[in-house]
């Protein structure tokens, strides 16, 4: 028989999970790119990889403290955004999509190759970079919490840090989008030529948006790897597609959408895959193996992306008038 309590508990854990926080943060960055500015960035996984490796390499190879390593990750992602933006921000949206996905793959291949194995660990990735971040943990050792939400001091510290970043990023996004800068950004999404006619330097504004969203992405990459190891195969294009699914689910041009979207996405996905796996174990789905059950969730995400775009492009919180893809 299926252990429903455990299944529900596992799903509920996703609400606070650092993975959810990382996806929420990355989706917020994407909301700035895609939702508010209309930039079709398909390389968010690349920004996350740069953040993660920037943090990991500067800690392990150069012995930086955690805050300096964090700044390195952010700095690298700003440079990446500038390199990406210069050739592509003047081009049509689908060109930007192809270039960003290619650039993210280039970054991943550089981290995977054996050529730089002493810095990147090639396909095995990196671990053991948590020391300095663990030292500043103000929580005394022990286990805290209730029910499924019982974690040790490091797990709580990662969760507080990750969700703290999400809240700060959300406040920044909310404030910015109410400012004159935000109005220009949204204007670019609606009609680039009209904004240009008002004397604004569209290229410059797009670049700022690309950098800001990219910084959110790199921070998300760091939150993503703090509870585990850095593995290059985690940063495949599928990661970006998952973030798009979250963004479309929550609503692309909203502040709350990416955050609630990430929580709903992970709770639902965890419940679904947990349920199918258990149903296979108890023999409810005799035509399926447990490995096949694991692949169902990816098929589901693909179908959800299609259905959302076709039937509810504004997502849960979005306004139909504020669609990222007007053209």
């Amino acid at each position, binding site marked *: 028989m299926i252990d429903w309590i455990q299944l529900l508990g596992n799903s509920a854990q996703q609400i606070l999970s650092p993975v959810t926080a990382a996806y929420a943060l990355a989706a917020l960055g994407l909301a700035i790119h895609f939702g508010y500015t209309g930039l079709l960035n398909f390389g968010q996984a690349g920004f996350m990889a740069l953040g993660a490796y920037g943090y990991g390499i500067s800690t392990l190879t150069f012995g930086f403290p955690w805050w300096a390593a964090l700044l390195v990750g952010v700095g690298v992602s700003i440079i990446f955004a500038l390199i990406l933006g210069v050739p592509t921000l003047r081009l049509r949206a689908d060109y930007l999509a192809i270039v960003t996905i*290619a650039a993210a793959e280039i970054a991943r291949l550089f981290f995977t190759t*054996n050529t730089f194995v002493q810095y990147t660990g090639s396909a095995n990735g990196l671990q053991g970079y948590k020391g300095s971040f663990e030292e500043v943990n103000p929580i005394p050792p022990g286990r805290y919490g209730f029910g499924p939400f019982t974690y040790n001091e490091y797990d709580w510290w990662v969760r507080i840090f990750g969700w703290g970043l999400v809240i700060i990023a959300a406040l920044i996004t909310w404030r910015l989008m109410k400012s004159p800068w935000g109005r220009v950004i949204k204007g670019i999404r609606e009609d680039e030529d009209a904004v240009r006619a008002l004397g604004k330097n569209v290229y410059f504004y797009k670049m700022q948006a690309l950098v800001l969203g990219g910084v959110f992405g790199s921070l998300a990459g760091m939150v993503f790897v703090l509870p585990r190891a850095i593995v290059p195969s985690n940063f495949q294009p599928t990661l970006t597609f998952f973030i798009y699914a979250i963004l*479309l689910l929550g609503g692309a041009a909203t502040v709350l959408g990416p955050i609630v979207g990430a929580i709903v996405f992970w709770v639902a996905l965890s419940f679904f895959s947990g349920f199918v796996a258990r149903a296979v174990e108890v023999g409810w789905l005799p035509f399926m193996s447990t490995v096949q059950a694991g692949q169902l969730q*990816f098929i589901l995400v693909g179908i959800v992306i299609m259905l959302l775009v*076709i039937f509810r492009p504004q997502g849960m919180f979005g306004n139909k008038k504020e669609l990222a893809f007007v*053209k």
Partner: protein
Amino acid sequence: MAHAATTPTSRRWPRLVATLLALLFSAVALMSAAPAHAASQVGIDENDYRVSGIVRLDGDPLEGIRITVEGPGQSAEAITNAEGRWAIGVPERDTYVVTLDESTLPEGIAVVDETGEDETPNSREATVGPSGSVVANFFIGEGERATTNVGGQILDRLFLGLNFGLLLALVAIGLSLVFGTTGLSNFAHAELVAFGAIMLLVLSVFLELPLPLAILIALLLSMAMGWANDAALWKPLRRRGVGLIPMMIVSIGLSLAGRYLYQFFIGGETRQLPYATTTALNTGFYGLSVIDIASMAIAIIVLLAVAFFLLRTRLGKATRAVSDNPALAAASGIDVDRVIRIVWVMAGGLAGLGGILWAYFRPGVSWDMGFQILLLTFAAVVLGGLGTAFGALIGSIIVGLFVEMSTLVIAADMKYVGALVVLIVVLLVRPQGILGRKERIG
């Protein structure tokens, strides 16, 4: 949106491409050659038998040495670990050729030939015995390496690159035609590529049909799949007036769902098509096998047929007219929907054929094989000019040659990086691509 004709307009491109290639080669030549991306234990869990060994120099283990094992049903490579060990799983109790890549050995070190008769001591045969495993070790010491000359290597790579470029062209032309006529950047094109190869796998290996018949049915199914894609999804979406960007995101969802649906049915491992790993078919002509030559010949014939269709037939002219300006084409009495339907059938068939050739080139059929070349396909299409069929052809051959030739100077596991960098550099210098017209990028 604007659409361009497929006529070549530029005389500048040879110089431009030469500059780009020179620029890129000099940029990547700084990186030293290194072993390809592989682990020390390859395919152990999936296979019943294994070939293994230890690479040592005077008793000290050598790490990072590339070993390849080729034979019935297996073609894999492993990199020795810190203890100098490697192991590759093989599916049959048979004889396999084990090769040690001498370029991965330290400077001045080579595989020593003890008998003095073997011209290539770095390659030897190993027969899996009754124990289910065999050890293949090499005598390593200071000495001269058995290397192919540089000219031979360049020609080897040239043919490989041409072969890859031609199969890429089949895939890219379909993508480009669909883009030209409907404006859709179809990420799910990768799944049409994998579909052809997977159908051939099902028909020829699982159902054991004769190969020519299986290929024919697989191609017909691929064309039907292309038609079904349009009829079931894209045509209704065009009717609803869904924009191009949402359609592109829909194609990403379709690609994701399709890819994992393939994995759901055929699993995560790589399977071989008939004759894909038979060494008996080698011709000795620059490492080409009969399959390579057949693959190139098929690709060239099909590409010529596509060119004839586009340039000489009424329907081909109609296709180019729709690419140029759908509204004007409709006004001049062309049935745009019919043209788009035919383009999708062609795209499906071409992608399926490209997928089959890609499965023989890699070699192997796997669930994500289409996605592996999707970005290279986009690179080829953008390089040639989005929406232009002949641009896609030229772009593909350049990308194919570039990918294979670049392994002469950079690590093999970085070979796709070069092509993706070309993509970005082209957009920087000439965003409309080699044959594209400037208005397209608006």
